[in-house]
């Protein structure tokens, strides 16, 4: 398999808007002995050239994931919009742990509000929706990586197909 970093940003402007919105964000990693691990992110930010994703996560909720990143840097992340089920998965092999930057705490707050605003009209209670994305702000750390591959994962026959630049 070709793992060369693409010369174009895999995330086009439309996808950039999508992943910055009220979407559920899940991060998958694996341990040295190939056990999968999983955590939820509470926001994300994209580098200006759209080549690098920065995922905001709770350290205490993500201990195994952080250990895995330090071990092998493999990562998968899924963005899914509950109201439409539009779902995209990105994978990379250069993930690393970073500290938050100015604005990240506000980013988490805005993300939570948007996420709750997405779920409540679907019939979920506000306190349940808030609990799903709850964490201590002073505990937030960042996982950054450059997506190498993108896949459409919206449920249906097209699920699993690779996405190219501009593909949705």
């Amino acid at each position: 398999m070709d793992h060369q970093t693409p010369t174009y940003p895999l995330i086009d402007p439309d996808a950039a808007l999508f992943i910055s919105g009220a979407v559920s964000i899940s991060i998958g990693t694996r341990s040295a002995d190939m056990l999968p691990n999983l955590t939820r992110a509470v926001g994300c930010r994209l580098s200006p050239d759209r080549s690098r994703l920065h995922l905001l996560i709770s350290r205490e909720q993500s201990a195994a994931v952080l250990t895995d990143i330090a071990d092998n840097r493999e990562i998968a992340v899924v963005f899914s919009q509950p109201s439409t089920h539009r779902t995209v998965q990105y994978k990379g092999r250069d993930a690393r742990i970073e500290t938050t930057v100015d604005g990240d705490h506000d980013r988490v707050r805005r993300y939570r509000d948007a996420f709750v605003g997405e779920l409540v009209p679907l019939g979920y209670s506000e306190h349940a929706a808030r609990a799903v994305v709850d964490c201590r702000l002073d505990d937030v750390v960042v996982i950054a990586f450059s997506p190498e591959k993108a896949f459409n994962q919206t449920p249906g026959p097209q699920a699993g197909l690779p996405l190219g630049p501009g593909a949705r």
Partner: protein
Amino acid sequence: MPRLDLIRECLEGTIPAMMATCASDGTPNIAYLSQSEFVDERHVALSYQFFNTTRRNVLENPHARLIVTHPLNGERFRMLIRYLRTETDGPLFERMRAKLAGIASHTGMSGVFRLLGSDIYEVLDIERVPGQVAAPPAPRRNLLAALRVCVERLAACTELDGLLNTALHCLEAQFDIHHTMVLMLDGSGTRLYTVASRGYETSGIGAEIALGQGVIGVAAREGTPIRIGHMTLDTAYSRAIRAATLESGFTDGLETEIPLPGLPESRSQLAVPIKTCGRLLGVLYVESAQDLRFSYDDEDLLVTLAGQLGAAAMQLNHGGDTAEPVESSVPLPAPTSGPPAVIRHYAENDSIFIDDDYLIKGVAGSILWTLLTDFVARGRHSFSNRELRVDPRICLPDVSDNLEARLILLRRRLIDRDACVQLDKAGRGHLQLTVRRPLQLVDVIENLPHTRPPLTASTASGRP
């Protein structure tokens, strides 16, 4: 670690579970699960619908990580699970397939959205994800205490009509479930007919559903409870796939959307087969306009109630026959005043029309025709269940057929139509026919004319 049975609500999928797997080359993958099922304290089942990356990964590397979320308070649990096997038949598979099929048929996705297998996983570890959660809503009431009241009331019933009405009344009074019905399987085993209901604008008695149609029909066909707890989301999910399917030009096999009987805004549905002695008798169906109304606990309760209902119904269907012969009643003169009511009987399907108004068909129609024939010919107005059961003119599909349920259906239809003929219980195992107008009986041997007033949807076809 937390017990799986205490967090089984998290497997409802109302907040979809996330699943991480790892390929043999070390590439992680994430998928959202459309369906997960509590199997027992150590096992969960996940639906296998497409051969995707998740599927390929677990066949290579059986460990997977799940995050499941409690639908009411958002509490999250992370599980380490290990793939064991895939079941492609048996009760669990049928239950999951039926649930999926119920969702699919509800939105016209039959044949597209289908279960290939139930993947069974062993649960190796469960941890609670740290985070604040609000207290879950207080339980509505002590469900076991409520169940006990129902069981005692049902045990006191001495006839089928009362048993069915007591069951539905109990569901309302004890469990706060306001929209309920009981449907019985007809003799052909292909259709269910409504024999009791509570909470609807019209009783719907006599309304039919084909086996396999909708949530009720699928529960009956598969012989397993079907529970859909979050109609909005399940529907939206099916519709997302449907849109994607339409876009991909993969449209063959899409059926016309079947409207669900009952509540127009039904958000929670639970259909539980009524079984006894290894036989399916019918379905107990409850629904609610509220999301997430019925839990695993409610399903347990209804399965328990349906078990008692089935055993009692079976007993009362046969125990209701009196051993004594009917006293030969003095023939009553037929009413002579007023215009005669023209009663047509179509032999083709035993349908009965009173003055061109459709009344009923099938076995219940055959029963009424027999009673009216005897009434007109001999002035008889009193009949016993026992003689009806063996009367060769009434073609009961088999000796164990539910005559009592047919009589309930017939009586209720006569009341609902305010017919000039009424049938009342006259002591145990006896029926009293009341006729308010002179009758003119017309037996039609040839096929039903196509110019007949259209039959209503609830009576369209089949033999109740």
